[in-house]
């Protein structure tokens, strides 16, 4: 319909269109819809009219049918009654003929006739009276007058003048006795009637006229013949045989009146009866002459009163104009209303559709805007992070320089921590930027060897100040089955853990945060044993496995309950026991699947928010970011990263109890020996001075004790755990030596006591006992006493009673520093230097030294100064350097088999530049390899062969731009180094070629 068509026009909103176009379209739409509404209303009105007309016509038709029916009925009845009356008059005529003429003397007289007529008048209700007039010719007039005793008078009661013949009434009914003796032929109508009647031999009627009763009526005349005439008798015969005439006046008016009164519906109808013998001038026989004002339907019925000469008809019409039936108005009105409703519904639907489409278009626009904003956001991030990176580099540089100065070991540790944190910050910034990459699927993971434990230490130190501030235990435990060196992306790994720990620390106010790493196999085994779905854990509600626990609180790291109840001590112990059993876990496969869990006792994640934890920028609720800060991007990045690493991340969280995030990551095993001397970049070797020492640890919490033990173990210190200080004393005094199975008879040099095991009276007693023991000579060396404390405040309280306080969170390097100080062991100087000495720190020179040591390097440069400097630098890293000043000279030296491991070549040289020289070298190599292939059977070991004669050639160039780089590779060079050398860049460039696999 029209409305729908109007709606179809407004489709397909292109968001790019201008506001003007939109407004224009809107106006067109409004116009269309208005037109549609008008058309629809008009159509509905037309329908209404049409229906109304139809109903009206139907009603009218029905009324007409009723009219016809009633009219016919009336006409027929009238005709019938008339016919009955006429028959009776006929019978009277026959009576007169029989008794007046056939009998001689006539058996009839006036009295008899009058009596008979009166007595049979019920048969002729329509006739006011009947009379018989005898035909009297003029010749007989006198005899007739004499015989009757009166003279013939005219209708005007005057003596009749001389006529050819007369028809004086001789017998009459009493009702009309006044016409006795009158010559009916003197009346115009009567005369005509008489003439016609005797000519036809039938009843004839006059035209209507006023009767003496002042009613309209007609006179019926029958001829009376002297003889019976045949039907086809001639007119002359009939005239001559005529004896007289019987007549009667029909009172049509009362006749019809009576008749109508008998019939139903009388009131509605107006009936007129006309004599239409003369068509042009119908004469009214009944009914009012005045036509009704409004032309109303009428019906005309022909009436046959038996006189063929006269024609009559009856016209019926309704008295009132037939009223229009209610249904003719109500039904179309109903239909109209329905149409309006339908129209409205369609209109509403259309406008709704239109609105929805408009909204859709708007949303599309908003979406585009949002996307643009997203791009702007990314650009903003890039800019800001760049701006942050610049000053941060300054900070890091300064820290670097600070580390080069003479520092106390604590100061050094602080400065290093600051540096590590700064680096972590920079890497975090980079990582946030990487999110775009992750989403685009463009992130590639590095695969370099790294030490997982030191990475975890870094993470711990990143958060140590925060955890100390809040008084939270922050601890890390790495299963000893996890290989020391793993191949993977340390940055990403660290990012994930940093993020999870950062989150935990943000939402934890008391209790602990515990990071642990296990191998997936063990973890699975442990959980399968417990028939629980996932496992990673360590806290406990009960403690039946460990006899040393005296705690009544939850047996977790800090004593607070953790969300993942699988992480109980029982489970953890099980895990540990699996690990200590020799499992054939690794040797067969190259892949190592780690399960890392980060457990906290924080506020937990509300149940309703748990579903969207990994959605970017979604925090538990909006108040979270108000109270705790943060962007909410971290977990989503972590999830992406974990998935890229081939793992999964999930969590268990109970509100107000805590959360435990667990993820798996697939890393590759790395042979430590293969990389130890080449790539110590990411390894922070721990001092080995403590190897062989032993310690006693006092801790009532087995989980925490395990963590401490783990750290001591990394330093090579064997430790034994006891739960109370009393036990320590007995251990030390040797009275309970059985518990010290692992240490045998060796006297522990260290006594580490957890601060919460340190009772106020206990400390004094320990001190006293130790002194006493020394004096007794039972122990020749007094063990150093350390307090493990999470808060700085403990330091003050106990400083005079213990040798040193180790501040938590524990990490191996800090522990080592503290032990050095307290035990008075001097750090081996070379180790110290390697660790933090030279200008470029740990990640520069040491590694280059490892790479270049003993390598033969050919340096080609026409510039003597450059040559000298390059040679000097390389020599410093232990390389054997040969210098030549031209490409030609270099070629002469470079003949297969090479003695050089690497060639550094200047590009711009007179005679033969670096590119050309390289090209020639490669050509020569190609020839040599071909020969080798031909000599040998080429095929299976051809890659090894080709690799054999490929001297790594690096360009030395001052302008490190892409074009030069491309040209380098084009002519067969393997890379470039900047000139003058930058150690880091040099290392990166050289690493590829002088790595462990290359150097035989």
């Amino acid at each position, binding site marked *: 319909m029209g409305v729908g068509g109007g709606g179809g026009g407004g489709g397909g909103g292109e968001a790019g269109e201008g506001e003007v176009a939109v407004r224009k379209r809107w106006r067109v739409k409004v116009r269309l819809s208005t037109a549609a509404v008008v058309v629809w209303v008009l159509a509905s009105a037309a329908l209404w009219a049409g229906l109304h007309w139809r109903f009206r016509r139907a009603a009218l038709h029905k009324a007409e049918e009723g009219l016809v029916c009633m009219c016919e009925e009336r006409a027929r009845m009238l005709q019938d009654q008339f016919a009955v009356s006429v028959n009776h008059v006929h019978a009277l005529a026959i009576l007169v003929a029989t008794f007046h003429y056939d009998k001689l003397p006539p058996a009839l007289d006036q009295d008899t006739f009058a009596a008979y007529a009166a007595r049979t008048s019920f048969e002729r209700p329509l006739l006011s009276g009947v009379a018989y007039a005898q035909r009297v010719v003029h010749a007989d007039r006198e005899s007739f007058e004499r015989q009757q005793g009166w003279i013939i008078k005219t209708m005007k009661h005057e003596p009749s003048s001389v006529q050819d013949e007369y028809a004086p009434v001789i017998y009459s009914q009493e009702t009309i006795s006044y016409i006795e003796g009158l010559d009916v032929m003197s009346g115009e109508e009567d005369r005509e009637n008489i003439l016609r009647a005797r000519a036809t031999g039938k009843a004839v009627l006059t035209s209507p006229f006023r009767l003496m009763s002042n009613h309209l009526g007609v006179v019926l005349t029958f001829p009376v013949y002297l003889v019976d005439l045949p039907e086809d008798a001639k007119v002359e015969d009939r005239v001559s045989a005529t004896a007289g005439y019987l007549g009667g006046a029909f009172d049509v008016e009362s006749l019809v009146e009576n008749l109508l009164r008998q019939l139903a519906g009388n009131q509605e109808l107006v009936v007129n009866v006309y004599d239409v013998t003369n068509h042009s001038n119908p004469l009214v026989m009944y009914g009012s002459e005045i036509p009704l004002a409004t032309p109303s339907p009428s019906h005309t019925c022909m009436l046959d009163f038996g006189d063929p000469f006269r024609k009559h008809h009856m016209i019926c019409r309704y008295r009132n104009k037939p009223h229009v039936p209610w249904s003719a108005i109500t039904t179309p009105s109903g239909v109209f209303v329905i149409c309006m409703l339908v129209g409205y519904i369609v209109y509403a639907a259309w406008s709704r559709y239109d609105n929805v489409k408009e909204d859709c278009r708007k949303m599309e626009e908003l979406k585009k805007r949002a996307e643009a904003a997203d791009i702007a956001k990314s650009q903003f991030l890039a800019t800001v992070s760049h701006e942050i990176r610049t000053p941060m580099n300054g900070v890091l540089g300064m820290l670097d320089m600070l580390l080069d100065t003479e520092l106390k070991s604590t100061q050094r540790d602080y400065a290093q921590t600051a540096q590590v944190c700064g680096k972590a910050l920079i890497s975090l910034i980079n990582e946030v930027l990487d999110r775009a990459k992750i989403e685009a699927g463009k992130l590639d993971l590095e695969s370099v060897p790294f030490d997982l434990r030191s990475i975890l230490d870094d993470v711990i130190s990143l958060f140590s100040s925060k955890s100390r501030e809040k008084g939270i235990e922050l601890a890390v435990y790495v299963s000893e089955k996890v290989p020391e060196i793993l191949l993977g992306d340390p940055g990403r790994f660290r990012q994930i853990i940093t993020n999870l720990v950062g989150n935990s620390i943000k939402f934890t106010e008391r209790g602990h945060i515990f990071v642990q790493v296990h191998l997936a196999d063990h973890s699975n085994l442990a959980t399968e044993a417990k028939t629980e779905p996932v496992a990673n854990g360590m806290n406990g509600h009960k403690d039946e496995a460990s006899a040393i626990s005296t705690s009544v609180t939850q047996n977790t790291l800090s004593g607070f309950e953790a969300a993942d109840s699988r992480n109980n001590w029982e489970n953890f112990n099980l895990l540990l026991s699996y690990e200590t059993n020799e499992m054939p876990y690794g040797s067969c496969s190259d892949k190592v699947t780690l399960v890392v869990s980060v457990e906290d006792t924080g506020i937990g994640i509300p149940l309703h928010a748990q579903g969207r934890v990994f959605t970017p920028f979604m925090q538990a609720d909006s108040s979270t970011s108000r109270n705790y800060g943060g962007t909410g991007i971290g977990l989503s990045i972590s999830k992406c990263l974990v998935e890229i690493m081939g793992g999964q991340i999930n969590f268990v969280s109970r509100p107000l109890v805590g959360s435990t995030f667990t993820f798996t990551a697939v890393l590759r095993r790395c042979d430590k020996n293969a990389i130890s001397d080449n790539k110590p970049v990411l390894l922070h070797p721990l001092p080995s001075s403590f190897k062989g020492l032993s310690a006693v640890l006092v801790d009532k919490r087995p989980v925490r004790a395990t963590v401490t033990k783990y750290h001591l173990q990394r330093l090579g210190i064997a430790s034994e755990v006891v739960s109370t200080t009393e036990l320590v004393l007995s251990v030390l005094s040797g009275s309970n030596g059985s518990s010290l199975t692992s240490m045998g008879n060796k006297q522990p040099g260290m006594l580490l006591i957890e601060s919460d095991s340190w009772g106020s009276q206990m400390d004094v007693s320990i001190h006293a006992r130790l002194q006493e023991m020394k004096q007794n000579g039972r122990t020749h060396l007094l063990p150093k006493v350390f307090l493990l404390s999470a808060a700085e405040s403990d330091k003050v309280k106990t400083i005079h009673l213990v040798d040193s306080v180790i501040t938590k969170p524990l990490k191996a390097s800090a522990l080592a520093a503290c032990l050095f100080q307290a035990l008075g062991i001097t750090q081996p100087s070379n180790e110290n230097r390697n660790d933090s000495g030279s200008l470029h720190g740990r990640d520069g020179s040491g590694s280059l030294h490892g790479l270049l040591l003993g390598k033969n390097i050919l340096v080609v440069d026409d*510039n*003597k*100064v450059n040559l000298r400097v390059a040679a000097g630098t390389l*020599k410093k890293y232990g390389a054997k350097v040969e210098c030549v000043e031209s490409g030609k000279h270099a070629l002469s030296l470079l003949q297969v088999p090479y003695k050089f491991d690497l060639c550094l070549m200047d590009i*711009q040289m007179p005679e033969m530049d670096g590119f050309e020289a390289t090209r020639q070298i490669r050509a020569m190599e190609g020839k040599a390899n071909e020969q080798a292939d031909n000599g040998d059977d080429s095929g299976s070991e051809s890659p090894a062969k080709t690799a054999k004669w490929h001297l790594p050639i690096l360009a030395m160039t001052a302008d490190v731009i892409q074009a030069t780089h491309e040209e380098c590779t084009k002519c067969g060079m393997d890379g470039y180094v900047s*000139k003058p050398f930058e150690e880091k860049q040099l290392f990166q460039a050289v690493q590829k070629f002088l790595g462990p696999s290359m150097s035989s």
Partner: protein
Amino acid sequence: MEYSNLRRQTIFMKKNLFDQGFLDEQFNQLEELQDESSPNFVEEVVDLFFKDSSRLLTNIEQAIDKYPQDFYRLDSLVHQFKGSGSSIGALRVKNECSVFKAHCNDRSLEGCRRSFQKIKREHATLKQKLESYFQLLRQVGPREHAVSSRK
């Protein structure tokens, strides 16, 4: 006392050289390379530089006179000069070389000449300063080595 005075003087002088922009980090790295096996490494390299550069400067001068329109030749000569300059960390010389090369790119002989004069001037200043620096260093001499080896 005298020793520490001298030492302070050297350090001050070096700091001045750095502050005035004659030298850059590369010079430090050169000193870094100096150890027992090559005790006079820096001086050796610097001598080499000045010998080489004198030759180069003569070459450049001749080239400017003989082939004033051969900017390519000029450019490559200056490039060499710049290369050796940056090897010892002669920052100002290096920068001036860059200016020269820019003039070469613009094919502006006049600019080149001006730049060349400046290069010569910088070169001479540097030479003089470094010579006095090494003079001083030689006086500090052996003990400096001891310090650096301990460092």
